[in-house]
């Protein structure tokens, strides 16, 4: 313990040099802005910064890249809350309750709680990083294809449970989401599926296009119906302070603390990521909540939970990259590449050979969280004014931003077609009150679920026993069944009380 403190203090002395702090602040600001813009996310930000990092000392380069990463996690929810257009995948769950909050005139509280929850989630995860990074990374290696498959089942089971009210519609949405993920080149057979000879479709339908279409464009389509009627009426014209009430805080306190560990663990698993973490924590919180009926209508804890989880996840995602040299996501893969070019080989030896760099980066995570919170609260005061823009100006702007953002993903005009179609699907879903959460979650986990299923089948030569072959699998099955059964158990308990 004493040794860790010494390392950490040394780390702070590295991270606190003016040059490093400068890049930390620049990175956090750049990340926040990129996170806000739909389509552009931390991966693009870090790739853009890449040529610059070659001229920096390794520690500075790593600090700058990491700060972009969590800056984006802070910023992503801004556009989810204000415009119903998620800034990036991890911010999709912030639409569910953040946007209704803003519509109900609680935008200030929504923006504040998302920054506060992100801050706390990031902070706790960083402390966990300091204490248990290496054992956690070793634990994550125990997850093979069968464990991933059951984990994805667990994630989907939770969704099935939350759409209990509209079970049939929820299932339809989920299956549609799963179908979307089958488009593109299939890894196990090397053949293209459902691409109709269009080479742009070989990479599959990017998840970010799905969410921007379903949420952002779908929202615009729906509002076209009554835009003529309340054309001049903006959502809100008077703005209060960006802060929350004591009541809000009480409601969010436990959700934040509960969902942070979940996000952290998901982050450590290579391949899972911020989006899965945010969606799982949202579902989880809805199940545990005393008033699940408020979820989706502007429940503040429904916003706090995924925000805490996705920031904890982004800290967790750094662990396999730094301690094992295994990149768990597109963002950390680019960071790893940059480190190699700087002559650093991440892995356990990084902590022995370059403790100043490793611990400097960890210390910078603490500072980065503070900086992001400091940037985001006053920024929110400015951003919230977007709600005073009348719909006839705001909606064309949303469409423009959505199309621009989608173009930056693949630089392919083909994606505009997909975006429009998905927008129309989103509109229909709203019209017929089909829940969107199952579709979104299915389209995130679908590809991984299918691939891990087939990888497992190849590993076991076709025997299903592999899915029950390890303690981790068994525990995950129990979780999955538990989360399916939970709504019924809690209902029965409520009956009894009456």
């Amino acid at each position, binding site marked *: 313990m004493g040794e860790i403190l010494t390392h950490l203090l040394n780390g702070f002395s590295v991270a606190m040099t003016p040059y490093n702090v400068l890049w930390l602040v620049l990175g956090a600001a750049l990340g926040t802005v990129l996170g806000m813009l739909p389509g552009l996310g931390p*991966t*693009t930000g*870090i*790739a*853009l910064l*890449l*040529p610059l990092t*070659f001229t920096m000392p390794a520690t500075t380069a790593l600090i700058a890249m990491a700060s972009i990463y969590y800056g984006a996690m802070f910023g992503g929810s801004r556009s989810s809350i204000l415009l119903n257009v998620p800034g990036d995948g991890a911010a999709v769950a912030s639409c569910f309750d953040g946007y209704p909050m803003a519509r109900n005139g609680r935008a200030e509280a929504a923006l504040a709680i998302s920054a506060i929850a992100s801050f706390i989630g990031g902070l706790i995860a960083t402390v966990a990083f300091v204490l248990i990074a290496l054992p956690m990374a070793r634990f*994550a*290696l*125990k*997850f*093979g*294809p069968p464990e991933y498959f059951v984990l994805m089942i667990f994630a989907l089971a939770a969704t099935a449970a939350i759409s209990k009210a509209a079970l049939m519609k929820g299932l339809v949405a989920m299956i549609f989401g799963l179908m979307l993920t089958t488009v593109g*080149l*299939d*890894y*196990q*057979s*090397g*053949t*293209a599926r459902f691409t109709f000879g269009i*080479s*742009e479709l*070989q*990479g599959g339908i990017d998840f970010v296009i799905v969410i921007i279409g379903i949420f952002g464009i779908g929202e615009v389509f729906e509002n076209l119906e009554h835009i003529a009627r309340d054309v001049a009426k903006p959502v809100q014209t008077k703005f209060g302070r960006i802060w929350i009430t004591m009541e809000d805080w009480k409601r969010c306190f436990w959700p934040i603390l509960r969902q942070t560990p979940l996000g952290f663990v998901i982050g450590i698993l*290579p*391949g899972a990521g911020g989006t899965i973490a945010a969606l799982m924590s949202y579902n989880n919180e809805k199940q545990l909540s005393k008033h699940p009926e408020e979820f989706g209508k502007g429940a503040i804890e429904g916003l706090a939970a995924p925000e805490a989880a996705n920031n904890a996840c982004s800290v967790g995602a750094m662990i*396999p990259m730094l301690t*094992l*040299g*295994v*990149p*768990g*996501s*597109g963002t*950390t*893969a*680019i960071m790893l*590449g940059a480190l*190699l*070019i700087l*002559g650093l*080989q*991440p*892995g*356990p*030896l990084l902590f022995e050979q370059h403790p100043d760099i490793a611990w400097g980066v960890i210390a910078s995570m603490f500072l980065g969280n503070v900086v992001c919170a400091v940037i985001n609260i006053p920024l929110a005061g400015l951003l919230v004014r977007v709600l005073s823009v009348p719909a006839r100006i705001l909606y064309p702007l949303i469409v423009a931003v959505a199309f621009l953002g989608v173009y930056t993903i*693949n*630089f*392919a005009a083909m994606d505009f077609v997909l975006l429009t179609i998905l927008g129309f699907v989103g509109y229909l879903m709203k019209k017929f009150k089909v829940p969107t959460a199952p579709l979104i979650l299915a389209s995130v986990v679908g590809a991984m679920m299918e*691939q891990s299923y087939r*990888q497992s089948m*190849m*590993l076991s*030569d076709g025997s299903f026993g592999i899915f029950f072959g390890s303690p981790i699998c068994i525990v995950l099955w129990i979780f999955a069944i538990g989360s399916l059964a939970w709504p019924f158990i809690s209902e029965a308990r409520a009956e009894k009380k009456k």
Partner: protein
Amino acid sequence: MRKFVLLLMTAIILTMASAAFAASYPSKNFECIAPAGPGGGWDTTMRMVAKVLTEQKLVTTAMPVVNKPGGGGGVALTYMQRKKGDPYELIVFSPPLILINLTGQSKLGYKDITPISMLINDFGAFAVPKNSKYKSLNEVFEAIKKDPKSVKIGGTSSLGSMDHVQFLVAAKAAGVTDLKGIQYIAFQGGEGLAAIMGAHIDLLSTGMAELVGPKESGDVKILALTSPKRIPSGPLADVPTLYEIGINAEYINWRGIFGAPGMPEAERKFMEDALKKMTETADWKEICERNGWTQVYLNAAEFKSFLDKSNEETKSLLAEIGMLQN
């Protein structure tokens, strides 16, 4: 006679025009294409080439890099067809150029763009978990010969792509006859590394750079590299080549620069020379070292015949596993 004079004059004018054109090349900005998104190998190579060419004044006009990702390079190949004969289009490619065509992922292939120079080589590696029962790659192949199902091979790219093919090349040379029976399981990026470190698979076939970290931490053992010669220094210097362990094979992950289809001869020659000069600069050498790239240089003709040969070899290999489409 009049006809002859006319013909002669036309010929002279044409020659002069093309000479004048060549002399003024390049007179406008290039478009340098990375057929994938920012941050990967293709993108880095194209950006570094453009950077050194302009910084060293080997090319005097601007060389902005444009990303055209999709279809494993297929989208960019289609785009190049629209630029036929345009000497201001450059693109970087590597073995997938041949693979996506042969496996039917793209109708277009290496014959649909103009090879200019090969610049970089990178190599593959085969790794096993630290406690693996296999002490050498030969033992792995012996086990596969007895029962192909008993050895689970992982790779970090899809079936019929580089990681799979490089293993097949080695297996074939080692005398494995049932190439189709080899159990290849495709992973994506870091998941493959995690799978070998957690011993969920028996062997991982991937690029050598990715395995340096897990090797240094002691989580995996690298049994062999696909390079023709041993890597002279650094963390991989103690890993044998396939040749050294008695397997007569190599697999090169090459990277080179191409022009649009039908790129005019004079301009192609200009770029070929510029790239040749670039590889002799200290800047380029340093970039190669920093990225762990093995520096090579093949001129257009050598590059073309390398591609022809590689195409034929890959073709017969893919035919054996039933994946040949084009």
